[in-house]
């Protein structure tokens, strides 16, 4: 009954939009934050679940979006001619050229979205064109996020270093201290989430979406049908990066701080776990997984810090071994018999640069 689905999604949307009515300020802020991360998680579901590309560096795109808007917020809080305080403490006396364009809110917004997407296109183009995929790609994205974090920390006079950027007062004329701004931001987050959710669903229903899954399951087959898979992969990787950047932007506006600790190797891989918990192919699962893991962390980690770390580790192992379809899989098990045509496993074939399954590789030395 598609009718029920037609009720469920609007109902969820209304429930979320009414949250300011029934949630306290703190929990509303929390929910807004996690829903913003849900946007990023949907991006991972697209890239990983549907295109079979495991991104271990989404934190970088998240961070670029976040830093883009944070730089602007840092500048609008200043009197004319002043420079951000951390620059003074680092011995700078003029605003670095890189910062100058961010005085304009429009440029900052556009930059916060375009720069990460462009970087994703560049990286994807460099790697997918050379048929670097699978674990190779995953590891390179991880190394990339590590290098980026190290770089941001080392460029303290220009980036705020390890402390990151914080202490914002207003954004686009709205005071960030005002609770109404926070509610407005929350509503914007929910609406953006909904918009991107339906856009992503549409994207998956197009031929493009089918080809993504086709490339995931048989890249060579698709290639031998006359398609060049690289642009498809680059495109979806860029979409994932854009969604991460949007999340970073909203997140920073919401919480008022961005620092390298939020975009490193560990946060980046944790983002994948949210999606794994929700079900890697399911967009709504990705959002729910994000909410569940983050609320869980918020509630559990303070009372049982040790337990939490075991829990998150076990989650990685269990979700991958027993529940490759995550929450979405549980939902299916609980509600109905497995579909006749549902796949037994979610085996994503090894896509090595040579495009040969690993077991067929022929190098002589072991």
């Amino acid at each position, binding site marked *: 009954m598609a009718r029920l689905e037609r009720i469920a999604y609007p109902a969820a949307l209304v429930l979320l939009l009414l949250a300011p009515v029934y949630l306290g300020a703190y929990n509303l802020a929390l929910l807004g934050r996690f829903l913003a991360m849900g946007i990023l998680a949907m991006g991972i579901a697209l890239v990983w679940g549907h295109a079979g590309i495991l991104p271990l560096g989404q934190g970088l795109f998240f961070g670029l979006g976040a830093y883009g808007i944070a730089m602007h917020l840092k500048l609008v809080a200043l009197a004319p001619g002043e420079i951000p305080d951390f620059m003074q403490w680092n011995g700078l006396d003029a605003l670095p050229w890189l910062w100058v364009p961010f005085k304009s809110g429009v440029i900052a917004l556009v930059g916060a979205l375009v720069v990460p997407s462009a970087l994703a296109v560049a990286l994807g183009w460099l790697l997918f064109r050379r048929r670097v995929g699978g674990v190779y790609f995953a590891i390179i994205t991880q190394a990339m996020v590590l290098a980026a974090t190290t770089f941001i920390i080392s460029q303290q006079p220009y980036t705020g270093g390890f402390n990151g950027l914080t202490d914002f007062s207003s954004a686009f004329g709205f005071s960030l201290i005002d609770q109404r701004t926070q509610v407005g931001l929350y509503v914007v987050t929910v609406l953006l989430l909904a918009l991107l959710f339906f856009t992503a669903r549409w994207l998956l229903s197009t031929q*493009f979406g089918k080809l993504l899954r086709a490339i995931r399951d048989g890249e060579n087959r698709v290639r031998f049908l006359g398609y060049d898979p690289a642009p498809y992969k680059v495109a979806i990787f860029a979409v994932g990066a854009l969604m991460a950047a949007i999340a970073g932007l909203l997140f920073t506006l919401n919480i008022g701080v961005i620092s390298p600790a939020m975009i490193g190797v560990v946060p980046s891989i944790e983002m994948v776990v949210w999606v794994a918990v929700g079900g890697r192919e399911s967009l709504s699962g990705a959002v729910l997984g994000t909410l569940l893991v983050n609320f869980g962390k918020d509630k559990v980690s303070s009372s049982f810090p040790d337990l939490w770390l075991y829990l998150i580790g076990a989650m990685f192992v269990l979700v991958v071994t027993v529940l490759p379809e995550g929450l979405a899989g549980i939902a299916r098990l609980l509600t109905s018999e497995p579909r006749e045509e549902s796949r037994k496993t979610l085996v994503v074939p090894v896509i090595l640069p040579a495009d040969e399954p690993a077991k067929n590789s022929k190098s002589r030395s072991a």
Partner: protein
Amino acid sequence: MSDSLLQIDNVTVSFQGFKALDSVSFSLAPGSMRTIIGPNGAGKSTLMDTIIGRVRPVSGRILYKGSDITRLPEYEVVRRGICRKFQTPGILPTLTVEENIIVAAKRHRAWFKALRTHITAAECDRVEEILDLIVLREKRRMLAAHLAHGAKQWLEIGMVVASDAELLLLDEPAAGMTHQEREKTANLIKRLIGRCAFVVIDHDMDFVEQLNAPVSVLHMGRILCEGTIDEVRSNSQVKSVYLGRSLEAEADYAQA
């Protein structure tokens, strides 16, 4: 250059000094068929890999419709009208039968042109036609992963045909099939002759005989002899290559 659709000139492929193909040459006219047989390791699959651009020859060249395609990337070769069917079924398991054919039949393969949910009327007709041709109309909504082995092979042949290629490379299209399935496959291929040209490789003599096309025997990367199936069968060189075993026995071995 010439009237031939595909022309292979002195192609040599080497893997770490081992010559998988050694100065192989042949040509193929539009709409015709050539079958290639040979024992395991003779270089049959490598030949297909080379034509399609997956393996680069160390010397020699491959002309298609008179232009050199030796060093083009695979998808570029495919876009010019050569399509290949793999030995193990190369279908897209997570798409339905119908979607498999749609993916193959699409005219525009750039990603931004794929951003629509519907296909053109012409593509739609094409899909219907192929579904009839491979007799999988009733199973069009089934996930390809759940087809029986034979049906997967036919689906892949359907996909190859749908891609509107003028030259189809079929790599052991009847591998692992039952006797009835083989016959069905052979009939399917024969129906397609004239519509496009074929290179078929197999080591099943009976199957090759059913196709009724000129045969080349490949051994140790070289073309040993060419001719009709009967000529090849009676060739003493061919017999000695098979180490004294009769070709029938070889065929049985392949079926086992």
